[in-house]
Each structure stands twice: as structure tokens, then as C-alpha cells.
């Protein structure tokens, strides 16, 4: 830089200041309305501060003024990419307080719906992660398949995004006639498509370059930060509430054949044709979190098939919803269920009337996102979307 005093002399001692960059709340790669304030030194981010609350809709306060069944539509709008799983989480919490037992058929119906919801959610997670990293096509592939799941859901309950289908006591309706065949047909054609996705993203050299070895978290760190779901399992902690959770959650999956997707002793449960782990990938990095999600899609397809078999032969009804103004016994319950993005917990305090004294939602993404402050330090700016995307957050659930 030439100085004003003597333009011929070049100043070699160029001083640079740290710069604050505001990323969001409308940045497409922040998955909603997350705002990050990045302190950058050139290309390197030295400090990240997330600011939440742009989608805060006071769901918990509203829950103190509605009966549990009336609050179901609000749970839909928490994790709006997995509305069915949110309904399920709240419903079993209410059932735990009511000590309500479900028929076998209702349980299998819930497994079918929950696992399809998980597939839909992970497909969006995959497509959106591609977008974050600058490739557009996987997003279209993912939405093509997700559309078919939404069609199936629409046939079941009439809604495509905010279902309010699973309610305390069971579900609002039975599966329509011929639905199982359609669902089976869909799963049949979905399985080979997953192999395409692996070619598109999982083993793509650019994708591996952008994600392998980035944002590495040790098992101690993920547990300490309370991360759950694929983020936890991506770091090698074998913990899945469908196997390890409370009785009400594991009971639904009782007798199902499935293994928790998690790297143990250097390999994943190997009953499918998975692509190999690239040599650059380290356990607990962005690539592994993505990989766990992709494997869970295959696992969910398998679980869904098992559930359909059981559902068609099971006894009982699909579950009759409890009364809209069902009186709740005095007491309090807390229950976490395994949602696509992690463990969603609901805490319900009742004073003996039909309206909860306190309805609290523990968001999985809320905890998952809290690691950004620790992870997005001394990383290039381009790695920030890669790290946030690998956590697969949905702001509707974080802000509630």
C-alpha cells in the first residue's frame, strides 16, 4: 500500500484487523433462521457466536393453556421436517402420565409411520447438506423420493407437512385400504436409489474432501454437550433410544431385528452393501455424521417392512384417541424418544386438571447446535456451513 506522504514508497507492513461477519438469519445454509456472528481473521474463523430465537413462537407457554391433544398441532411445528415423530414423542409422554396401554396393532402402526418419517427427514438432511456444500442435484433427488412419502402421509391423514396424526391413545385414523401395498412398492424402489445417493454424495471425492476430518468430536465431547441422535452415533457412542431408552419407547420396537448404527471396532453393522469409509475420514467428523444418517435410511426401510408384516397380522385396533378434554392425573412425567435429529424430550407437569401446568419440550437440535461455539473455532470460513449442515439442525425445533 502506498502512503499518502510519498506514493513511491510501498508499505510492506500491512495491518489487518479482525472482522465480524454476520451470517444469517436469512442465510440459506443455516437451515432456517439461525444467525451466526463470526469473528474472522482473513479466511480463518476465530470465534463463532450463535444467536437464536428468530423462530420463537412460545410453544411452551401455549402448552400451558391447551389440553394435550390440542397441543399436538404445535408439536408438528417444532421439527417441521419430522412432524410425525414429534407427535409420537408428545403422545407417549401423555400416555405415560395416563398409564395408557396400547394395542399391538397401534404400536406397529406407529413404528411404520415413525420410520417413514425418519426416512423423509434424513432425505431432506442429505439434500440440504449437499446444498450447503455447493451441489444442487442431490437436493432434487432427495425431494423426489420425499415427495412420495408425503403422498403416502397425505393419504393417511390428509396433511403433507403438519400431520397431527399420532395422538395420545393411538392415531386419528387407521391406515387406508391398500396403503400397505403402496408403501411396500415405494420401499421396493427406494432401496436401489440409496445406492445412487451414495455415488452422488457419500463417495463423491469433492464431498469427502469437504467433510472428512472436519469438525471432529470425541465421544466425551458429544456426551458432555448433550448431543444425541446421529451426531452422538457419528462419534462412535452406541446409544439409540429405540434400543436403550425407557420402556415405553423400547416396547414399540420389542422383537424387531435391528442394530444400532454406530462404528464399533472400526466397522459398521454389515448386513447391507455399504460404501467403504474413506481413508481421510476420522470417527466423529462431518462425514461420519452424514454416513450414519444414510445408513439409518436403510435401517428404517428395514424396520418399516418388519412393522408392516406385524401390523397386517396384529390384533386389536389402531388405537382410539383419548378425549379432547381428558382429565390428567396429578403428577409429572418426562420422556425422551428417538427422533430423526436426536432425542426429543417432553416434560409434562399436571395439577390434576385437563390442562398441563407446564409443558416443556427438550429439543435435540438445541443441544446439537450448542457445539458450534466449540467446533467453529480456527476453521476456514467455508467449513462453517459444512459443520452446521452435518449437525442437521431445524430451527423450528430449537426456537420452539
Amino acid at each position, binding site marked *: 500500500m502506498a502512503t499518502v506522504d510519498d506514493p513511491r514508497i510501498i508499505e510492506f507492513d500491512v495491518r489487518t484487523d479482525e472482522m465480524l461477519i454476520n451470517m444469517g438469519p436469512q442465510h440459506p445454509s443455516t437451515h432456517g433462521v439461525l444467525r451466526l456472528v463470526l469473528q474472522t481473521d482473513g479466511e480463518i474463523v476465530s470465534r463463532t457466536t450463535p444467536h437464536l430465537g428468530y423462530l420463537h413462537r412460545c410453544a411452551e407457554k401455549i402448552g400451558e393453556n391447551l389440553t394435550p391433544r390440542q397441543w399436538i398441532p404445535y408439536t408438528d411445528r417444532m421439527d417441521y421436517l419430522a412432524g410425525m415423530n414429534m407427535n409420537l414423542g408428545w403422545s407417549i409422554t401423555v400416555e*405415560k402420565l395416563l398409564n395408557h396401554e396400547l394395542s399391538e396393532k397401534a404400536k406397529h402402526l406407529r413404528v411404520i409411520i415413525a420410520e417413514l418419517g425418519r426416512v423423509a427427514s434424513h432425505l431432506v438432511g442429505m439434500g440440504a447438506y449437499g446444498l450447503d456444500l455447493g451441489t444442487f442435484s442431490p437436493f432434487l433427488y432427495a425431494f423426489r423420493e420425499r415427495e412420495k412419502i408425503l403422498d403416502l402421509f397425505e393419504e393417511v391423514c390428509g396433511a403433507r407437512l403438519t400431520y397431527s396424526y399420532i395422538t395420545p391413545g393411538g392415531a386419528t385414523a387407521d391406515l387406508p385400504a391398500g396403503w400397505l401395498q403402496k408403501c411396500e412398492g415405494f420401499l421396493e424402489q427406494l432401496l436401489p436409489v440409496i445406492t445412487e445417493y451414495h455415488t452422488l454424495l457419500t463417495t463423491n471425492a469433492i464431498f469427502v474432501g469437504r467433510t472428512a476430518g472436519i469438525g471432529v468430536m470425541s465421544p466425551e465431547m458429544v456426551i458432555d454437550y448433550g448431543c444425541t441422535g446421529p451426531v452422538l452415533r457419528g462419534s462412535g457412542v452406541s446409544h439409540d433410544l429405540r434400543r436403550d431408552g425407557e420402556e415405553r419407547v423400547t416396547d414399540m420396537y420389542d422383537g424387531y431385528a435391528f442394530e444400532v448404527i454406530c462404528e464399533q471396532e472400526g466397522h459398521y453393522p454389515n448386513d447391507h452393501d455399504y460404501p467403504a469409509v474413506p481413508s481421510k475420514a476420522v470417527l466423529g467428523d462431518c462425514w461420519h455424521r452424514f454416513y450414519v444418517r444414510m445408513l439409518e435410511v436403510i435401517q428404517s426401510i428395514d424396520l418399516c417392512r418388519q412393522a408392516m408384516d406385524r401390523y397386517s397380522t396384529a390384533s386389536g385396533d389402531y388405537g382410539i384417541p383419548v378425549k379432547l378434554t381428558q382429565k390428567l392425573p396429578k403428577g409429572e412425567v418426562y420422556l425422551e424418544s428417538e427422533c430423526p435429529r436426536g432425542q426429543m424430550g417432553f416434560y409434562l407437569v399436571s395439577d390434576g386438571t385437563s390442562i398441563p401446568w407446564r409443558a416443556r419440550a427438550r429439543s435435540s437440535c438445541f443441544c446439537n447446535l450448542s457445539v458450534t461455539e466449540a467446533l467453529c473455532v480456527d476453521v476456514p470460513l467455508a467449513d462453517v456451513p459444512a459443520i452446521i449442515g452435518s449437525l442437521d439442525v431445524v430451527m423450528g425445533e430449537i426456537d420452539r
Partner: protein
Amino acid sequence: MSGQTFIDTLKQKFGEKIVGDHLEVIDPWIEVTPEALVEVCQYLKTDPGLQFNQLQCISGVDYLETDPKKAKKIDWQPHTEVVYHLWSIPNKTSLVVKVILPRWKNDEEGQLPEVPSVADVWRTADWHEREVFDLSGVHFTGHPDLRRILCPEDWVGYPLRKDYEMPLEYHGIRGR
């Protein structure tokens, strides 16, 4: 370890600091004095037999009946509870720890009740305590960065308190 033996060992170790235990309810809970909270949590997390290594949730629950007719019938005094839900990944067991606080410190309205922060025990507590502070109005002493998380920084009041009233105006936006 059965519930009763667990409580007995805990009481033997901490004595008066464990104020109460409720094992007969759906989710058994223990009550701890605010002063002993960090100490007890550290023990619950690190004891090799317990290993409550995951803090699932911190919730603030406000107990106040605003309806004077109903207030005559209730059998409790107004108070605020901070509820900690713990989970042990190795043992697959859960525990609820409660701290019961007055609604206002020294009963002076506007003075937030205080409870020590457990952010050094579990990092999860960092954001959860900010949320409880933001919505329920509990001050966590020793928290690394206690500020509002969901509501805007200049928000007035604590929305999840039972006597909270919606502001009529916020930066030119009508409340009602």
C-alpha cells in the same frame, strides 16, 4: 442399585443436603439444597456406579396460582422449581434432581432467585440454563455467559412465570 439403597447411600454421603426423596412417583426425584447442587451433581456424574453422564434437560417450573378463587384450595406455597433430568448412558437409568427456590430472592419482587450453575459439570447446562433464565427468571450464579437466548436481549419479564403479562408494545409492534 435399587432406589432405596441409592437414596440411603446418597443421604449417608450428603446428609442434610438431600432435602427430600420421592420414589413412589412415575419418575422418582430427589430434592437438593441449592448450595449443595454442584457437589451432588459432580458426584452423580463421576461416581463409577452411577455415571449420570448425560444431562437431558433443565426446566424451570413456576408455582403460583393467579386465580384467587383457586388459590384458596391449593395446598402448596408459591415457589419456583428448577428440574434437572439426568440419564446414564452406560447404565440406562434416569434420575430427576430438583431444586426448590422462592419465586423472588428474599421475597423482593424483581430479585431473581439464585441457584449455582452446573455448566462446569455438563456443558449441556450452558444453553439450558440460559433458556431457564430467559423464560422462567432464575439466576444461575457462576454461569459463563448468562444472557437471554430465545427472547430478544431487551425483552422485559419472564414469559413462563405464571404472573407474566404480555407487553402491549414492543418497538412499535402492537402486542394485542
